[in-house]
């Protein structure tokens, strides 16, 4: 293992411009949200700040990833560099796992402790005195505050859209693996086909997820502000949906790259990283299907 071939890039304008983009997004989003909540109080044109920030960041990320791809294809990366990217991606996914863990932890706490306590059960059942009429049940159709904070009329039936979505995502993991094997065997046409199938399955998943949200909002009264059931439901499935969208987008980029002739049977970490991410998103869904929809 020698480091003399380790590539240390020259100075780069990407990070500083990306930081400007990020602060634009943060300050813009903050301003927009405060505007929304306070009815127009705050600084002028936060939307513009947010838009400019987002475009700047998108522009930089595009160029940054392009440069990494160009450098990689120019043969500037040693196997050791490849290893850095592998470790980096692995630890990034671990950080994502912990992000979802926070929300799953909240769900566990509410169902296992906070809810029953409000109902007068268990060690801290004295909190029942807050709302003596409250009976705990999950899904929580009646919130502790009762009529002041109406709960959902019904919740999503796990055995329709969610089951279908489970099948879709599970299959997409399989098709992605087929594409990966084909890439290793240098069957480019087969890779392109199965990767396209994967992206389409992901897109269908997102489509059904949107349908499910529309049903929840328009028919079931299941909304973000329908109490803790809606809060945990939408935040968990919502962040997962965002991750599916990002993952499908990354896979789509990989599809374009394969069509352009990128990757070799033994050098295709970009593809593998996207695949790791996709399988991670898939595993989160299994957790969601179990703990949010079924149980």
């Amino acid at each position: 293992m020698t480091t003399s071939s380790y590539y240390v890039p020259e100075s780069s304008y990407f990070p500083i411009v990306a930081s400007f983009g990020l602060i634009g997004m943060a300050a813009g989003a903050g301003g927009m949200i405060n505007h929304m909540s306070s009815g127009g109080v705050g600084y002028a044109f936060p939307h513009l700040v947010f838009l400019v920030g987002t475009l700047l960041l998108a522009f930089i990320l595009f160029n940054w990833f392009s440069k990494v791809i160009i450098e990689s294809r120019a043969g500037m990366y040693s196997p050791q560099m490849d290893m850095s990217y592998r470790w980096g991606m692995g630890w990034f996914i671990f950080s994502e796992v912990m992000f979802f863990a926070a929300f799953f932890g909240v769900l566990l706490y509410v169902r296992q402790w906070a809810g029953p306590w409000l109902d007068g059960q268990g060690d801290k059942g004295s909190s029942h005195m807050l709302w003596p009429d409250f009976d705990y049940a999950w899904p929580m159709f009646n919130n502790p505050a009762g009529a002041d904070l109406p709960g959902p009329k019904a919740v999503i039936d796990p055995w329709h859209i969610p089951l279908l979505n489970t099948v879709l995502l599970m299959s997409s993991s399989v098709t992605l693996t087929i594409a990966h094997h084909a890439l290793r065997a240098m069957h480019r046409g087969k890779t392109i086909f199965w990767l396209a199938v994967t992206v389409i399955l992901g897109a269908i998943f997102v489509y059904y997820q949107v349908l499910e949200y529309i049903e929840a909002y328009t028919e079931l009264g299941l909304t973000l502000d329908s109490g803790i059931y809606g809060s945990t439901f939408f935040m968990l499935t919502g962040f997962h949906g965002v991750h599916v969208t990002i993952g499908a987008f990354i896979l789509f980029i990989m599809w374009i790259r394969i069509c352009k002739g990128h990757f070799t049977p033994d050098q295709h970490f970009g593809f593998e990283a996207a695949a790791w991410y996709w399988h991670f998103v898939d595993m989160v869904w299994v957790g969601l299907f179990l703990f949010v929809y079924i149980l």
Partner: protein
Amino acid sequence: MTTATASHDDHGHHGPAKGIMRWVLTTNHKDIGTLYLWFAFTMLLTGGVMALIVRTELFQPGMQLIEPEFYNQMTTMHGLIMVFGAIMPAFVGLANWMVPLMIGAPDMALPRMNNWSFWILPFAFGMLLFTLFTEAGAPNFGWTFYAPLSTTYAPSSVTYFIFGVHMMGISSIMGAINIIVTILNLRAPGMTLMKMPLFVWTWFITAYLLVAVMPVLAGVVTMMLMDIHFGTSFFDAAGGGDPVLFQHVFWFFGHPEVYIMILPAFGIVSQIIPTFARKPLFGYASMVYATSSIAFLSFIVWAHHMFTVGMPLQTELFFMYATMLIAIPTGVKVFNWVSTMFRGSMTFETPMLFALAFVVLFTIGGFSGLMLAIAPADFQYHDTYFVVAHFHYVLVPGALFGIIAGVYYWLPKWTGNYYNEKLGKFHFWMSFIGVNVTFFPMHFVGLAGMPRRIPDYALQFADFNAIATVGAFIFGFSQLIFLFILIKTIRGGEKATDQVWEGAEGLEWTIPSPAPYHTFAEAPHVK
């Protein structure tokens, strides 16, 4: 905006670019380390001024200087800036400078991302500080931002606070991943894991903690954002949530976070004491295992911050005993430091003085921590100045002294010049006296019942508070001596040898002083 990948220089033997853009565009781990360290020092002075405002108000009972609302903003911003702006970036700066030098790597593993990790921070803190000048005022709910203070009753600046925390989180996670990857992948041949210097080991474990808990912080502030602006009920019992849930999620982040702020200091002290005792570190392997144990335990002790919030008895007991377990690996460390010094040929240069003060004063903070760990006793101590005394003892003469010790220790390697030893010792003694005069009396007023985060207090606490304020000013202004020494050393001074310290061992002492812009382009071989 053209691409800045200049091609006229070859790799390996060119110096830094000229002018300000060197610092803005750099991918060099030494430049980025320097940026982190100066940023941290700026934040230390900023947060320090806020602390002095707080102490000035507390000099006498009654309200004299500021409004209570502003007092709350000062305590909140002081905490946030010191934790996220001063201590953490200072450690990341030291890691950037020293980890590649200590493991024989040419740079950090992901140099461009390294630059981004840094440059996010000035923007994030700029936004946070800017809220001070808005009509709504800065965040005022304490650095722990408990719901519903930080949700239902928060000023509108909380939205910017939330996005600021997100930016700090992105920076920390990228920085931590970079350090982990560098350590795992860029060690010189022969540098096995169990040969790594302890500073590298402690940072490796710290980085793991960062990657594990910063996303949880991101999660909890996101839930706050949703509760405040989008009608969710995470921390609202009326909708089936629970404000106590906020504290659980926050402290699941927060407790590992306090070890994030101390483990690298353990590493620094473990480098310094062997050098100035001229003996190898006693119990190297046990140090590694102790650090790992502390990291593991940090995940199962969080609710000791919440003993009085109303938890089931068995939960109180579990968290009480788990917390006390931490004393064991920490005791191993203190034992090893003392044993390293036993029969050593000790000299007492400034880094060693700060390291010794660290061992003694951190241990005092550890003991008051043990007192707080006892759940029934904590019912008395909770939210008093005893807690303030406890965590300032582990963070100021703990984490901060560790950082200062490290800066003095490595400064000759960075600048090529020795600092002025007389001035260094003067800085040490002023800091040492200042810190104890400030924080030791807080134990007494805390045990007597003075609550924290209140701008006024009962008359019987007046004397100790006056003493603490005097100490705070001594300590605060002593740091200007530090600034003077730093600038003086950068500008010149007695030339440092390559080894710098007679008893120093390790790869970083084999390269010239000052360290060349690029080091270890060819990996050294470690026996």
